[in-house]
């Protein structure tokens, strides 16, 4: 009991994560606390048991006998099969719920998203008469409407605000951000506090991964597989963007920054950099 309590206390009070700067980060931290508590309880419990056995049952000088010949105990075994099973099941369901709340199960805006992934283009080969025809799929030439969007994570939308679309290109060894609404191209990602952002990511050469530790978000960017990642920043500041997938010698240097602005700051930045139709872009992007 004391063990459980101290485990819970440690889980609630240990702070080993960086700042939580997006809407899904606090949800993530909840999960982390639960996992940390369970982990601590189990680990301390087992470690304590082991240490106790080693000290209590150690062979003392001059002892020559054997231990007692117990070979098993069905009840005990059922007990310690059941405990981990219950824990694991609970953790699984809980983390599924968390994942759902983080937006992992949200079908992405594109109709072909996610589920389309595995079944699309099953018409690529059809048996006809005595010859098999392997047809090129209509999906072959990527047209914007039917383009398949691969997994990613959709974020819970903050108050129904429309998302700010940003096109992300990952290449050796940099991220490029392009804002279609203002035709801005930038090496840094600028977003506005409280407004959802929709990253449409593509890789040029090899696999990269977009990671912002403070957002608790990571997504591989795989060549040939356009991917969408949505999130809502909730805390102003600058955070590192890190490439998390080995992509060559300068993988370690493939970093950038995401700047989360207060709304008016963001408008100023946007205005300063916009080359086209400033007004329209602004009106749609600064609703938050």
């Amino acid at each position, binding site marked *: 009991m004391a063990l459980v309590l101290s485990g819970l206390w440690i889980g609630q009070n240990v702070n080993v994560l960086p700042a939580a700067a997006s809407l899904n980060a606090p949800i993530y931290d909840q999960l982390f606390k639960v996992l940390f508590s369970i982990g601590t309880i189990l680990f301390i419990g087992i470690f304590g048991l082991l240490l106790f056995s080693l000290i209590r049952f150690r062979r003392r000088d001059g002892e020559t006998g054997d231990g007692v*010949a117990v070979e098993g105990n069905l009840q005990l075994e059922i007990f310690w099969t059941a405990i981990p099973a219950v824990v694991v099941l609970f*953790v699984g369901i809980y983390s*599924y719920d968390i994942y759902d709340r983080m937006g992992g199960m949200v079908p992405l805006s594109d109709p072909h998203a996610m589920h389309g992934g595995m079944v699309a283009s099953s018409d690529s080969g059809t048996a006809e008469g005595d010859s098999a025809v392997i047809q090129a799929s209509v999906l072959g030439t990527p047209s914007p409407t039917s383009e398949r969007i*691969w997994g990613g994570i959709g974020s819970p939308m903050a108050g129904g605000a429309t998302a700010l679309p940003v096109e992300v290109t990952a290449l050796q060894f940099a991220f490029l951000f392009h804002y279609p609404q203002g035709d801005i191209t930038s090496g840094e990602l600028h977003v506005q506090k409280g407004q959802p952002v929709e990253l449409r990511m593509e890789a040029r050469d090899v696999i990269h991964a977009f990671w912002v530790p403070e957002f608790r978000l990571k997504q591989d960017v*795989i060549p040939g597989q356009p991917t969408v990642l949505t999130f809502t920043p909730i805390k102003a500041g600058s955070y590192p963007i890190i490439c998390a997938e080995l992509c060559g010698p300068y993988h370690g240097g493939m970093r950038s920054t995401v700047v989360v602005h207060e709304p008016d700051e963001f408008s100023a930045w946007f205005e300063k950099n916009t080359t086209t139709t400033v007004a329209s872009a602004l009106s749609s992007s600064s609703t938050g």
Partner: protein
Amino acid sequence: MTIALTPQTSSPPPGLQPEGWLRYLSFSLDHKVIGLQYMVAGFFFYLVGGALAGMIRAELVSPISDFISRETYNEVLTLHGTVMIFLWIVPVVNGAFGNYLIPFYVGARDMAFPRLNAVAFWLIPPAGFLLIASYFIAGAAQSGWTAYPPLSLTTPAAGQVVWILSVLLLGGSSIFGGINFIATILKMRRPGLKMMQLPMYCWAMLGTSILVVLSTPVLAGTLVLLSFDIIAHTGFFNPSLGGNAVVYQHLFWFYSHPAVYIMVLPAFGLVSEILPVHARKPLFGYTTMVYSILGIVFLGLIVWAHHMFTSATPPWMRLFFTIATAFIAVPTGIKFFNWLATLWGGKIALNSAMLFSCAFIVHFVFGGITGVALAQVPFDIHVHDTYFVVGHFHYVVYGGTVFVIFGSIYHWFPKFTGRMLNEDLGRFHFLITFIGFNLCFAPQHWLGLNGMPRRVAEYDPQFTLVNQISSVGALLMALSTLPFLINVLWSAFSGRVAGDNPWKALTPEWLTSSPPPVENWKGEAPLVQHPYGYGIPPGQIDLGAATGRELWSSGQ
């Protein structure tokens, strides 16, 4: 056939079996010789892999790329991972201990296919040297031990092709070994010995070998396709030629996840042998242990995609693999609780073998718990490909398997050589390994959570201090090999003479002389139906008793 019979007890046979130490350098067919060949070769590659780890940790002392060039860093970390997994852990826990112990345990005089066995071993040194030579000649592979395309298609081709070639050779060796173990365990048992009477290590090796036979060929096929992509410019895994890079990941992990159980199940088996002997108690829950091994084998084959949670896998797939992965904690947990129950109420000798085994339990439970956390998709999304993962797997492979290997060497050294290892040096070795290990890898979890990705030569300066702590730990680990090496070399020639059965153990390998004769037993193999029949009331058995056989007959 005429062979002069010199009435010497353990003289090596003439002909193809050369005399003395020379047979260790030759194509020997004796399973004990092959086992030790695996062990020594594996340990050599451990030093190589450790030296490479040393280069990694030296580079990471400072946040900028200064010690070695960035390309070299990637070569070094690729070689480190490949060498440690394919040339150290897998050959030693499977090949070395499997070959040495399994024939004893099933009551056979050798493996089912001794020739195949020798071939399997002799594939390893050339493959290893090929791999290492590639570093000096053409530059080694730079794409990590996972060799994900398209990166592995765009880095210098020569190194990558050599890497593929040597992994194919090592995989072949592994498959041949697996076939041999399955045949030996299922078919070579001495009459009267039932499956459920085998020592636990046999079950572990059976499970491991099933995994080897089912999953290694898939890796082989995948690497062949990858080499086509590199050499013939096909586009299987090359998106710019219409291929699919994620299919490679699926196929790769279909092997490489089971591979982690190939690395750890035999270690589980070895611990199950060591604990009862030094705690003088029967192994707790034999039957559930067997079923949990089979459960791990089954689950191990269907969880591979937990390495790909950020690779744009569809949600249903992530959900399935989360649940399946986390469920491995159940059969694994059974094993750990059984071990604790084995210790409970025992008469535990706190010698080096026992200390290493107990440290294994601590480390593996820790690494297993972080593993179950990693299996949760939302958690993994944050820490995937960070030092948290590096921390997780060094806890299970080093804190788990390598600790067991050391423990096993302390336990079986008297069997191999007839001499004891020095206990004081052994405990000293344990102490610095234990401290160094935890100092090196525990802080890495924090690094990962706070934003340090893996496989980088340069990092955010805020992490400098923690990385330096980690490097100090690595230095301690490197130093800890010294007392061990000294101990082994010194004891092999002038250690205390062990006698046939210094631990008064009941498993069959101890019921013969140490070191054993070529045919394992003079006379018939003993029928050991209760390999863990410890637990005789005090006084009824004399630990100073003479031979193992005497002990055995009085024990039951």
